[in-house]
């Protein structure tokens, strides 16, 4: 070896060893610290989890939860196996509630508006100042004898917090306390009120039915109480006894539709007529069990007339009628494809009549009316609509508006001109923990805790044919400088003083809640059974997650008055067919619901179960329609209604009628944190401002649209490469009989 080479080797070796040494140094984790407790909390063992029972409040279903807490931090939320609503299950929204708690975009302190309204520019203030400012405004209102000009607008709250909020408003001297939210299913409640006397969604006994006819109820995904229904559905299909059949009537195949045996894509707006035609066929064929009150009404809805209107063949209507009447028990559910229209109440009534004719009301496996209200359930005031609030604001009848939980700026169409109405309200306060579109209009923000930090209770509606009262307890200490929602009302009452402070004289909301449960305990004798006094009952309820009694089956009949509001005409859609050829179906997406889930990154990255799209909005178009328009998957299009325009990429979806397009609700936020803001489009923007005149529920299916090619832009991100299985046998199937034989062979 030459001397030169030797030196080269030495050099390279040295550089190599040096580099290795440095890499070894930098790749080591930096000296981690061990931080001990100063004084250890007695009930915490580091490294050992504590589970607290509570209730998920991300939607109105009221699923019981168990929250895993380690060293004072909530780590994981699971379903409470003992809770009668969800029996251990929990949906994606509930799983993400820890991301609401630790969300980086939470409002961490009380805020006062700095910039113009809607800009979202705020300055931090103290709680003292915030409460004083709001109380000062209220006192001024009172001194001017304008108490009636206070409005409180909340999400559909229930239980004790709802009572407290109501007490606060009425003690102040105002009667204006309203609830608002999408998907309140007020149409069902209204139909149920006129039919069975209780204004609530009844308990649909999916578990025990053998033939389920669902009119667009996406109960496997978002509809009313999805975890409860999914559980029931699983038992109906795979539980003991014969496998039940599911038929789904809807223009756009939902997740529930995808697991149905039959999909009936009736023409949008005519589904109620289809229900009536089925009912009439049952009567005509002499299969009805209880048709006395309806024979006359139904005779107008002949199957052969309905066939052309609904775009469903006569044979199919007759086959459905026969199967629905002959299979025992059977059940029809009034989901979104009968109740999301301007005459949604009428649609829900039609389905009630169908159930009555087939004899499904008040039987196991049928419709079970709720009647087990323990006294604190959600109450629906059908007179209070968002439209009445808007006209009151425009007429100068609202001087101070307090908003909590509801986000009407996002969930009402632009045509409602809500923002304009809000600009006429001199003072707006929000108790929201997030900067949503409505909160961005507030002059002052008093951020409330998220549900994992707060006290509360819940009385599930719809019930589960059993009395249920669940408790919400704080599982962690407040992460930020926020307050319990109840405490805000109580401290505000104290600051306002006078008879408001006199009426609400609890020291804090935890005490108020306990007192409320004491009343509940003494009123309901069954609650007291097996407990040693109230304290014992309270502790047991906290430990279990609440109290629930044995199941009570109730019977009822549909009163003849139910037919009063039956319209019997197809629902109206805005826009001429020639100009706007497609029906627009905006639907509740599994993860975002009405848009509330969009700020949680887990939900953004959760692929949509039907399309697998993540982090965006898409428009579902039938491949045939797309071909005729010259569109391919991923092309940006403009979706234009007589009321506005949004754009979204095309998703080719064979599960939709060629004359219909569908857009998921939930994206298109202009505020609401870094994960939601400026992403996708909001289909509600381009809807006409329509609600059912009887119930006040928003009519989401109410316009036609046209599709035009849009500017290139957003890319659609989806997990699936192809919708086709291409003969690879990804899902291996065997018939049930074959399976039984195989099982025997194995054993």
């Amino acid at each position, binding site marked *: 070896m030459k001397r030169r080479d030797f030196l080269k080797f030495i050099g390279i070796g040295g550089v190599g*060893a040096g580099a*290795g040494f440095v*890499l070894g140094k930098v790749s080591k984790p930096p000296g981690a*610290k061990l931080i*001990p407790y*100063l*004084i250890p909390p007695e009930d915490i063992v580091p*490294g*050992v989890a504590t589970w607290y029972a509570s209730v998920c409040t991300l939607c109105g279903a009221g699923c019981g939860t168990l929250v895993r807490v380690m060293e004072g931090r909530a780590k994981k939320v699971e379903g409470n196996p003992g809770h009668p609503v969800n029996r251990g299950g929990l949906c994606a929204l509930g799983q993400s509630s820890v991301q609401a708690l630790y969300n980086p975009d939470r409002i961490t302190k009380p805020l006062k508006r700095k910039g113009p309204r809607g800009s979202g520019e705020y300055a931090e203030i103290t709680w003292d100042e915030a409460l004083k400012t709001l109380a000062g405004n209220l006192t001024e209102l009172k001194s001017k004898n304008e108490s009636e000009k206070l409005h409180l607008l909340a999400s559909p709250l229930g239980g004790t917090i709802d009572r407290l909020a109501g007490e606060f408003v009425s003690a102040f001297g105002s009667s204006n306390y309203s609830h608002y939210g999408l998907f309140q299913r007020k149409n069902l409640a209204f139909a149920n009120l006129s039919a069975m006397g209780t204004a609530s969604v009844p308990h649909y006994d999916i578990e025990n039915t053998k033939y389920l006819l669902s009119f667009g109820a996406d109960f496997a995904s978002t509809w009313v109480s999805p975890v409860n229904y999914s559980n029931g559905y699983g038992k109906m299909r795979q539980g003991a006894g014969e496998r039940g059949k599911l038929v789904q009537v809807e223009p756009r195949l939902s997740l529930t539709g995808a697991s149905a045996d039959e999909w009936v894509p009736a023409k949008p707006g005519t589904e109620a007529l289809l229900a009536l035609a089925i009912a009439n066929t049952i009567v005509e064929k002499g299969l009805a069990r209880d048709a006395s009150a309806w024979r006359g009404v139904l005779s107008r809805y002949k199957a052969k007339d309905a066939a052309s209107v609904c775009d469903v063949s006569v044979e199919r209507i007759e086959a459905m009628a026969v199967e629905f009447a002959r299979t025992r028990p059977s059940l029809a559910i009034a989901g979104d494809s009968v109740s999301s229209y301007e005459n949604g109440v009428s649609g829900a009534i039609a389905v009630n009549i169908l159930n009555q004719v087939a004899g499904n009301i008040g039987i196991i496996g049928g419709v079970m009316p709720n009647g087990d209200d323990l006294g604190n359930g959600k109450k629906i005031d059908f007179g209070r609509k968002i439209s009445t609030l808007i006209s009151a604001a425009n007429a100068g009848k609202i001087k101070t508006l307090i908003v909590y939980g509801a986000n009407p700026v996002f969930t009402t169409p632009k045509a409602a001109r809500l923002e304009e109405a809000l600009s006429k309200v001199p003072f707006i306060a929000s108790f929201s923990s997030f900067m949503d579109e409505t909160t961005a209009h507030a002059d002052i923000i008093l951020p409330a805790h998220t549900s994992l930090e707060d006290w509360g209770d819940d009385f599930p509606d719809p019930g589960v044919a059993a009395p249920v009262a669940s408790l919400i307890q704080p599982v962690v200490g407040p992460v930020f400088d926020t307050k319990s929602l109840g405490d805000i009302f109580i401290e505000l009452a104290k600051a306002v003083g006078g008879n408001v402070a006199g009426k609400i004289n609890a020291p804090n909301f935890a005490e108020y809640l306990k007192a409320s449960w004491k009343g509940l305990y003494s009123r309901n004798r069954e609650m007291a059974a097996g407990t040693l006094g109230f304290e014992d009952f309270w502790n047991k309820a906290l430990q279990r997650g609440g109290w629930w009694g044995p199941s009570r089956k109730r019977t009822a009949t549909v009163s003849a008055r139910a037919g009063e509001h039956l319209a019997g005409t197809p629902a109206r859609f805005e826009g001429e067919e020639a100009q706007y050829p497609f029906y627009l179906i905006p639907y509740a997406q599994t993860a975002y619901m009405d848009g509330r889930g969009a700020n949680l990154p887990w939900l953004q990255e959760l692929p949509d179960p039907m399309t697998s799209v993540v982090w965006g909005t898409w428009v579902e178009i039938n491949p045939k329609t797309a071909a005729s328009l010259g569109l391919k998957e991923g092309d940006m299009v403009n979706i234009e209604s007589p009321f506005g325009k949004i754009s979204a990429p095309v998703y080719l979806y064979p599960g939709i009628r060629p004359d219909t397009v569908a857009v998921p609700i939930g994206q298109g936020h202009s505020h609401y944190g870094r994960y939601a803001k400026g992403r996708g489009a909001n289909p509600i923007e381009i809807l006409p401002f329509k609600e059912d005149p009887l119930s006040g529920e928003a009519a989401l299916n109410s316009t036609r649209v046209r599709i035009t090619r849009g500017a290139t832009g957003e890319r659609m991100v989806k997990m699936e490469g192809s919708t086709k299985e291409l003969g690879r046998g990804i899902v291996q199937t065997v018939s049930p009989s074959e399976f039984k034989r195989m099982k025997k062979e194995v054993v």
Partner: protein
Amino acid sequence: MKKLILYAVVGGIAFVIGYFVNDQFFSDRAPVQPINFSHKIHAGDNQIPCQYCHIYAERSRVSGVPNVKRCMGCHQIIKTDSPEIQKVASYWDKKEPIPWVKVYNLPDHVYFPHKRHVRAGVDCKNCHGDVASMARIEKVSSLQMGWCLSCHTKREVKNGRDCWTCHK
């Protein structure tokens, strides 16, 4: 070309040697702690049992660093004139925890419960060495998988060689 490969091989071998020299001889096996705490005085001279201070070892995944209140429990009276004890007292007065430097660090993908080991009768010494003679605590075990497995094998731990026992 042949030479180039030779250079690469020599460089590569040197790189690996450099890495291990750092890892084996330059690692901070006995880091300086915010307080010059001596296990020799506590566990050695005064014979205080390990679990008097590491109170969670039998009940939890972690053995637990003694909370500051526990230190002060004795040192409000004992050796209050020592400058190191005064440091402890100043943390206590400021209501601040003592930021000890971690000596034994396991990656997140390893599930190691102290509880099971203590209950199985494994002596603390087995992994932490003769702490009673250490003035400053020193890492004596590699905590690498081979090291874990050799003990699991020797003691014939049930499912002791199963991946899921530790990686879960």
